[in-house]
Structures are given as structure tokens and as C-alpha cells.
């Protein structure tokens, strides 16, 4: 971590970058927040550890409009989102100096019993260990690093950064599960079971829009759900239909653009597995239109803005 701070300071001092976008220490070991740093002094609060799950590429949309370059730290999976935003002309590549940071899987504080955590040892970077020592208000416990990882890290897309100016630190491919296993499990259910499953999950939704607002792909200047002329507005919670519509449309709108960064599921206060929507689209796209991973190739044709004359017909082979 000191290496990252050191490098950031020297880039700031040389004037190559005007500010640094990274993560800042919080009150507790796990509540790190995304932050901009303008001076070497501010960088004393910089932190990089197992709890830096936040994908910083979305903040580059705003930073691209500012004077000067921004140094941004991106984990391997964040770089897919960065690329995708470049492809959509929302980020100016020239305004970013990217340091690709090593990642050994990120943690979900909730899995450690977040509300009682006083301290976690073993989540530091680069010296994170296989076992986390968690000190809570009610005693100590040891948790295997793997058991506390975010869902997305179990289906890690790999340790390669897709775009960077320089790399610091080693990454580990933490994939130990099939990315589409959960989707396939639901597909195998009966319509009644499917409906019951999603109804139970979506009825928890509080319409806070955190999933939308954190999503790098969801960055329309004005969202349809924010329109005052639209009576299925973003705030009403009616349990009957609006949550379903919101989540279908949210996922559809990012279909073919979603890099599967997993931020939506990370931030949902109700723990709704939102990635199951996005991944369903990704699975279908892969099956029907050929393997496609958003954020890899900036020049590739996206699946929903291209076609083949012999594409499958809607509804064929379903059920």
C-alpha cells in the first residue's frame, strides 16, 4: 500500500496528474470510501485493502470533465467498466492515468458480521492472509478469507487488467465457482417456483436506487425512472409491479454493456441478488449471439447494436 501512496505522491508532485482517485480510510477498517485526493498530505488517509470493493471507474465520468489528468486506481475487474465507459464516450481516456492495482479478492463486511466488527486483521494489502482475525464487540473469531469474499470474486473474470498505464502489485484469480450456475439453477425451476423466488427477493426492494446509481453502465444523464412525467416513478413502492418493472428495465438497459462487475449486488441494502438479472442476459447473449464480454474490446460490436440475419426467433425453444 505504501508503494501506491508513494507513486501517487510523485505523480502529483511532478504535475503529471492533478488529483488522485482512490479509497480513503473510514471510521472502521471496513468502511473505506471512494475519495479524491488533491495533495500529498491528504494521501496520508489513502488506504487499499480487502475492503476496497468499490469500483472507481464511474467516478471518472465526472473527473473527465475537469481540468488535468486524474490518477485512478483500478482493480482488474474495474478496468472492464472503465473500457466500457470509454467505448460509450463517457470517459476520456486521455484524462486518466491508470494504475492497475493487484487484487486478491475483495471482502464483504457483512459476511464477517459487520455490525459488530471492531477490527479485522489479515485484510491488508499486499500481505493479506488466508485467515482473517476478526475482533468484534462480542469476542474474536477467525474466518477464512475465501468465505468472506464478495459473490463476484467467486466468479472472478481473471487477474488481467484490461487497460492501464502501469501496474503495481500481484493479483490472484479467485474464481472457484461457475459464473452461470445460479442462473441455470433458476432456469430449471418451474414458473411458479421462479415467480415465488423473485417475488420474495424483489418485495424487499425499497426503491433506493443504489443499484442504479452505483452501476458504471447506468450513467444516463437523466434516467427514465427520474422523469416527473412518468407515473411509475422511482420512489413509489407498491409491491405489485413496479419493483419488477424497475429491475427488468434496469437490467435490460445494461444488457450487452454490463461487465458483470457485481457492484449492484454489493450495495443492495436488502441483499437482493441483482446480478442474477444481469447474468441471465449475459448467459442468453453468449448462447444466442456468441461469447461476448463487455469491456474487453473497445471496438467490438455490442450484441444489441448488431444482428445476424439468421438470429433465433423470439420465444423459440423457450420453456
Amino acid at each position, binding site marked *: 500500500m505504501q508503494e501506491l501512496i508513494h507513486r501517487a505522491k510523485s505523480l502529483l508532485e511532478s504535475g503529471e496528474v492533478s488529483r488522485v482517485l482512490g479509497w480513503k480510510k473510514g471510521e472502521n477498517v471496513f468502511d473505506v470510501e471512494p475519495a479524491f485526493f488533491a495533495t500529498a498530505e491528504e494521501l496520508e488517509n489513502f488506504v487499499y485493502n480487502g475492503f476496497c470493493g468499490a469500483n472507481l471507474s464511474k467516478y471518472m465520468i465526472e473527473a473527465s470533465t475537469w481540468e488535468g489528468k486524474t490518477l485512478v486506481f483500478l482493480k482488474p475487474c474495474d478496468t472492464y467498466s472503465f473500457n466500457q465507459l470509454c467505448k460509450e464516450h463517457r470517459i476520456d481516456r486521455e484524462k486518466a492515468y491508470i494504475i492497475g492495482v493487484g487484487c486478491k479478492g475483495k471482502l464483504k463486511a457483512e459476511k464477517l458480521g459487520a455490525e459488530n466488527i471492531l477490527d479485522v486483521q489479515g485484510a491488508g494489502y499486499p500481505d493479506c492472509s488466508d485467515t482473517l482475525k476478526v475482533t468484534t464487540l462480542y469476542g474474536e473469531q477467525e474466518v477464512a478469507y475465501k468465505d468472506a469474499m464478495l459473490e463476484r470474486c467467486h466468479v472472478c473474470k481473471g487477474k488481467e487488467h484490461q487497460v492501464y498505464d502501469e501496474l503495481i502489485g500481484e493479483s490472484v484469480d479467485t474464481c472457484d465457482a461457475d459464473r452461470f450456475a445460479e442462473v441455470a439453477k433458476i432456469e430449471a425451476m418451474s414458473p411458479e417456483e421462479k415467480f415465488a423466488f423473485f417475488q420474495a427477493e424483489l418485495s424487499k426492494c425499497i426503491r433506493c436506487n443504489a443499484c442504479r446509481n452505483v452501476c458504471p453502465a447506468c450513467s444516463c444523464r437523466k434516467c427514465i425512472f427520474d422523469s416527473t412525467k412518468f407515473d411509475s416513478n422511482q420512489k413509489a413502492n407498491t409491491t405489485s409491479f413496479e419493483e419488477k418493472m424497475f429491475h427488468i428495465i434496469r437490467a435490460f438497459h445494461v444488457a450487452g454493456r454490463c461487465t458483470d462487475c457485481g457492484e449492484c449486488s454489493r450495495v443492495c441494502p436488502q441483499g437482493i441478488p441483482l446480478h442474477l438479472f444481469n447474468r441471465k442476459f449475459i448467459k442468453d447473449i453468449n448462447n444466442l449471439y456468441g461469447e461476448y464480454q463487455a469491456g474487453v474490446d473497445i471496438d467490438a460490436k455490442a450484441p*444489441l447494436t448488431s444482428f445476424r440475419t439468421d438470429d433465433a426467433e423470439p420465444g423459440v425453444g423457450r420453456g
Partner: protein
Amino acid sequence: MPVNNENWKPTIVAFCCNWCSYAGADLAGSSRLAYPADVKIIKVPCSCRVNPMFILRAFEKGADGVILCGCHPGDCHYSTGNYYARRRMTLLFSMLDYLGIEEGRTRVEWVSAAEGVKFSETMNSFVEKVRTLGPSVRLGDLRCKN
């Protein structure tokens, strides 16, 4: 939710492209071919004008089935619009299945301006299919129905 009431008639929304399918519907009408009066046709410039929100909003507002009709692939008035529509609807319908919405409530059918008979037959069979499924509950907004 199948209903026992023989007289229940489903509400069907049919999005028809201006150039082929709407003309096909016209032909069906002028040829005096029967199709159920419960089919509400909404004319769109091209099948690819229909975005997923249209389909969902139709269900929200009380439709029991939604069908999209456009020019045959290769015959789009704008050359390629229906190809894009095809991909979108394929993904959307697959998602609706995934969420446990009864299959059969949505359909895409390519109907040319000369196919009045096909239009009428398509609507008849679609209405019959939806009728067996009963009123749409899973995708409807229940606020006003309670």
C-alpha cells in the same frame, strides 16, 4: 390464473409496424376476415421502435397478452429495424420466462402487408392461447384492481 368463466375475454395489445403489419391488419379488415375485437392495435413506425418498456407498460396497464408484429426479416422498410427488434424481444421474453411469467403471453410474429389472412389467424390463435392462461396477474399493477 385460468378462469372458469367462458365469457372472459383477454385484453390484447398488438404493436404493429406501419409498413407491413398495420397494412396487413388493414387488409384483414377490408377482406372481412374476423379477428377478436379485444385486440388493441398500436401503430408504430417500425417494430424496433418498441422498447421493452412498451411491453411491460402494456402489461402494467392491464394487458393480458402483448404481441409485436413487424415486416418479415429482410423486408424491413428501414432495412434492418426488425433485426434489432428481434434480438431485443428474444432477450426480453427469455427474461420474462426467467421471472416466472407464463410463457405464451408474449409473441412476435412477422406479418407482411399482403398477409391479411396470417394477421387474422395469428390474432385468433394468440387470443385463444392467452384465454387459456387467464388474466395476467404476475405482471399487472394490482393497485386499482383490489
